[in-house]
């Protein structure tokens, strides 16, 4: 009966839950859950107030409907109900079990009662009839009472009275009655308990409470999870109006949001996009995610990952969307950073590989260039042999035709040699091997020498002039060899393309050019060599009145192997490398080479270079050490002379050769007095005060000097007389005060041909040399301690047609030089007793002072020197060529610093010796 009642109850409750109670409750709960319960602060209360005051807000009223009308809502309810049912079932099962137990207990109790009653019936058969005595019964009762107390658990009735007596029965009846009472009492209590438990069961089983608990739990769970999550959730209807929103950190109040669309609420970037996205989801009916960056006034720039899903009602119609957004700004920033890093990485890798490629190409190029240089070098050696032999051949007896052919051969060979030298120069500059030397030099003298040298081989009636402004320092520091190379190149170029008029060099100091200021740091680093001189920029113009350069040819003028036009190349010859080398050299020295030109009017090549200005202290020291450039007792005028002119001779009988060198504009000054040896060496020095000594050399050197040497000085009448005595009759113009030509007059016919073949001046000189060395061989001294080296060098000299004296160390060398006059000394640097550098210094000191005091001080045998001292005195600077074991720049610097003129790196080769002899022996 109890069971039935309970099941009825459950069914009743079920019905109730589904029908009425659920929606209101859930609605409230949900509202609380999502909107009301905020952690802390003023907002909380505000929110709560809002909700309580306005319970009619769309979401509160609509959410239950929503939940009821959509699948999601019903499924949620179904779940809850199912859960509740399951729990009810469980409770019922438990109750049933308890009931079963109670029933069993009751049955036991009933059975016991029955038995007792039976017992009683059986035993009271007789006592019913037994009369009851008051006393005895009293007694009996007392007794029984005692007994019961004693045997309470025995459950047996023990009667002390004698069986079948009145007392006995009385006693028994009493005890039985008591047992019955107890049993009844127990039964009552059980029933009570049963009722009680039924009651509690009733209260526990209330479905509303169950659901409330569940909901509380769900709410707690959601709160726990969502407490600090940067999440916004919401539901929007199909017009995308918010029906419901949950925002952890709201910046807008409910009423500002609900019932409105995104576009109505926010303004700024991303709003439209998100709206479109939501609409798209709504239309497609497919949940999807997207990342949208909002830039709104409300919360700045933030990126949200938005999940939107469509919501259907039970009829399957779309009624709106659910949307959930999570702020991922930081992640996006990180991700973007990562992407950027990855991108950078990729770019860097690409660049790296590109760079590697470039390096590879550069290496290849370098290797190719190196190979070219090596090849050029390899070609040069045998070629110089060919040319050399041809030259020797030209000194033999040949008929005119043979000579012509031979000259073509020589000039072609020369051209190839020049080309190869240029290539070697270029590759040296390009590969950075070319080292610049910083030596002091006098720009005026360099200009003068360059013009002089050019004049010496001039075959046209051109006026060569040099003009140096007063502000150009007397001495500057720079790589004089390279500067001279540039000047020579530009001048010979100018002469080549000029048929009449004049060619000249102009030097002036300018302020620091703009291009240099940009590279100021680099330039400083490059030029700075520990000296503390101030810098000066000198602009050098090399101008001519030649054929000029058409404008369209200017850009490629400085390119390798390019000439203004193919016609020019044919007409004027040349390698097309000269200007390229000049440009590279100028740039290497931190300067700039430019050109301006007008066709048929002439061209001007301008290079601007920085120089250090030598300090005056160094100047005086330098006089002793670098005397090759300067005369020891030069007139003060000479060092500051700013104008030179080399004019063609009027009516010269040597129309092909002999240029006239003079200083027509400054006739009172000694401009140029030149010893032929010096001129040809390229180390032209002013020996105006040494004319007496020079004459001695002339005598010594024999006839060939007679022909070529013309030394005059306008300030000295006797010298002028001497000039005429020599009987050259070359100088018709009074303004021509000095002339020098190494071309022998006997070569006149040859020279005419050569001019057509553009043979370089050097070659002519060399030819003259080979001609003239026949009668008197130049005296060469080799200073070397190594027997093998001596043997090899001697043999080479022999092959070159020379003999040599040998000195085994510096002291022997000094003695030898003291004894006889030499034209060239080849000096080993590293020697026992006295090394080459010291020996050279002593020789230079002797040349200057005319005595060997320095040598004697240095410990060279006094007697020998003193004995010989008076007899012979060297008058000219003796060319001393160092032979060094290594060719590093330091070493060559050392050689120059000690007064040597040049150096040959060891091992000595035929080629090196030949070049050296060509340069220094004439």
């Amino acid at each position, binding site marked *: 009966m109890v069971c039935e009642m309970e099941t009825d109850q459950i069914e009743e409750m079920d019905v109730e839950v589904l029908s009425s109670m659920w929606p209101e409750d859930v609605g409230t709960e949900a509202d609380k859950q999502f909107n009301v319960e905020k952690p802390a602060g003023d907002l909380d209360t505000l929110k709560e107030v809002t909700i309580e005051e306005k319970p009619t807000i769309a979401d509160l009223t609509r959410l239950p409907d929503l939940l009821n009308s959509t699948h999601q809502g019903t499924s949620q309810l179904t779940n809850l109900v199912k859960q509740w049912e399951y729990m009810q079932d469980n409770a019922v099962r438990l109750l049933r079990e308890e009931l079963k137990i109670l029933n069993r207990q009751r049955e036991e109790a009933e059975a016991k009662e029955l038995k007792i009653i039976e017992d009683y019936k059986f035993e009271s058969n007789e006592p019913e009839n037994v009369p009851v005595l008051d006393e005895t019964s009293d007694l009996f009762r007392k007794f029984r009472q005692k007994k019961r107390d004693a045997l309470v658990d025995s459950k047996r009735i023990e009667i002390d009275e004698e069986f079948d007596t009145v007392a006995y029965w009385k006693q028994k009846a009493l005890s039985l009655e008591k047992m019955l009472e107890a049993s009844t009492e127990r039964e009552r209590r059980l029933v009570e308990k049963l009722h009680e438990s039924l009651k509690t069961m009733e209260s526990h089983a209330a479905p509303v409470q169950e659901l409330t608990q569940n909901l509380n739990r769900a709410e707690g769970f959601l709160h726990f999870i969502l407490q600090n999550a940067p999440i916004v959730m919401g539901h929007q209807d199909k017009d995308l109006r918010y029906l419901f929103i949950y925002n952890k950190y709201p910046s807008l109040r409910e009423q500002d949001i609900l019932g409105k669309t995104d576009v109505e609420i926010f303004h700024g970037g991303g709003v439209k996009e998100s709206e479109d996205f939501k609409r798209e989801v709504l239309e497609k009916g497919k949940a999807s995610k997207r990342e949208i960056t909002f830039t709104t006034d409300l919360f700045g720039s933030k990126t949200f990952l938005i999940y939107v899903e469509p919501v259907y009602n039970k009829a399957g119609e779309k009624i709106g969307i659910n949307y959930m957004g999570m702020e991922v700004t930081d992640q996006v920033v990180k991700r973007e950073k990562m992407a950027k890093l990855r991108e950078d990485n990729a770019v860097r890798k690409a660049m790296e590989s590109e760079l590697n490629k470039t390096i590879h190409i550069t290496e290849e190029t370098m290797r190719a260039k190196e190979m070219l240089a090596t090849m050029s070098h390899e070609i040069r050696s045998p070629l110089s042999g060919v040319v050399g032999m041809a030259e020797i051949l030209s000194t033999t007896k040949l008929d005119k035709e043979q000579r012509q052919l031979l000259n073509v051969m020589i000039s072609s060979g020369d051209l190839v040699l020049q080309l190869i030298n240029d290539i070697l120069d270029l590759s040296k500059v390009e590969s950075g091997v070319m080292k610049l030397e910083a030596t002091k030099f006098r720009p005026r003298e360099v200009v003068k020498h360059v013009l002089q040298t050019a004049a010496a081989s001039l075959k046209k009636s051109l006026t060569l002039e040099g003009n140096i402004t007063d502000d150009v320092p007397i001495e500057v520091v720079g790589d004089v060899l390279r500067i001279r190379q540039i000047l020579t190149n530009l001048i010979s170029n100018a002469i080549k393309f000029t048929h009449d008029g004049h060619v000249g060099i102009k030097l002036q100091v300018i302020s620091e050019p703009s291009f240099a200021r940009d590279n100021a740091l680099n330039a400083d680093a490059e030029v700075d060599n520990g000296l503390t001189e101030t810098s000066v920029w000198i602009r050098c113009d090399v101008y001519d009145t030649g054929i000029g350069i058409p404008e369209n040819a200017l850009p490629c003028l400085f390119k390798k192997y390019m000439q203004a036009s193919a016609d020019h190349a044919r007409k004027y010859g040349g390698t097309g490398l000269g200007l390229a080398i000049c440009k590279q050299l100028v740039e290497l020295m931190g300067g700039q080479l430019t050109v301006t030109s007008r066709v048929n009017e002439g061209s001007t090549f301008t290079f601007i270079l920085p120089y250090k200005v030598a300090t005056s202290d160094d100047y005086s020291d330098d006089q002793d050490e670098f005397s090759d450039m300067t005369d020891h007792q030069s007139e003060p005028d000479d060092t500051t002379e700013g104008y030179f002119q080399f004019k063609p001779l009027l009516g010269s009988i040597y129309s092909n050769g002999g240029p006239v060198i003079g200083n027509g504009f400054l006739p009172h000054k000694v401009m140029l007095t030149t010893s032929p040896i010096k001129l040809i060496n390229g180390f032209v020095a002013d020996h105006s005060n040494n004319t007496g000594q020079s004459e001695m050399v002339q005598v010594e050197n024999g006839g060939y000097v007679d022909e070529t040497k013309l030394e005059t000085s306008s300030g000295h009448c006797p010298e002028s007389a001497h000039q005429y005595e020599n009987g050259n009759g070359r100088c018709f113009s009074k303004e021509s005060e000095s002339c020098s030509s190494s071309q022998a007059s006997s070569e006149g016919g040859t020279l005419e041909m050569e001019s057509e073949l553009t043979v370089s001046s050097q070659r002519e000189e060399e030819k003259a040399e080979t001609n003239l060395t026949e009668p008197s061989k130049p005296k060469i001294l080799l200073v070397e*301690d*190594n*027997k*093998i080296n001596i043997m*090899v060098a001697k*043999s*080479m000299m*022999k092959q070159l047609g020379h003999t040599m004296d040998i000195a085994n160390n510096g002291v022997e060398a000094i003695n030898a030089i003291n004894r006889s006059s030499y034209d060239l000394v080849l000096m080993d640097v590293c020697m026992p007793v006295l090394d080459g550098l010291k020996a050279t210094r002593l020789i230079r000191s002797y040349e200057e002072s005319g005595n060997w005091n320095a040598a004697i001080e240095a410990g060279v045998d006094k007697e020998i020197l003193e004995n010989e001292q008076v007899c012979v005195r060297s008058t000219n600077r003796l060319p001393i060529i160092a032979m060094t074991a290594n060719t590093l720049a330091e070493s060559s610097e050392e050689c120059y610093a000690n007064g040597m003129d040049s150096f040959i790196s*060891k091992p000595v*080769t035929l080629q090196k010796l030949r070049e050296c002899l060509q340069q220094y022996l004439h």
Partner: protein
Amino acid sequence: MDLVQMQKSLQDYTKSLFLEGILDSQFLQLQQLQDESNPDFVSQVVTLFFQDSDRILNDLSLSLGQQVVDFKKVDPHVHQLKGSSSSIGAQRVKNACVVFRNFCEQQNVEACHRCLQQVKQEYYLVKNRLETLFKLEQQIVASGGMIPAVELGF
């Protein structure tokens, strides 16, 4: 062996000396200097080189064998040897001398000993090879042949 073959093998042998770096182009310079007026020039120079070098190496061994090595004595010897080897084109001897001199500057006795061994080794190598070369040449001359000219630029 017939003459042509001998000449061929001499050429190959010479070439191998250059390829192995035992000789460099300076040796060609010597050969260029040899002509009718001086037919034995190369062997004369080389013989002089051998004599000189034997002496130098001997001196070097003695100097380096001293308790206290006097580098002022050692260095000029090495310089001398460097100069002569460079002059005849004994490239590897020269290179070894360059290294040797560096250690002389550093006064590194132990390294100098090593260098001396290296120089000796290279010297005996070039000596051996050159002697063989001359023998080959003599054989050719003895068979009435010409010494083939050394090819340039291989």
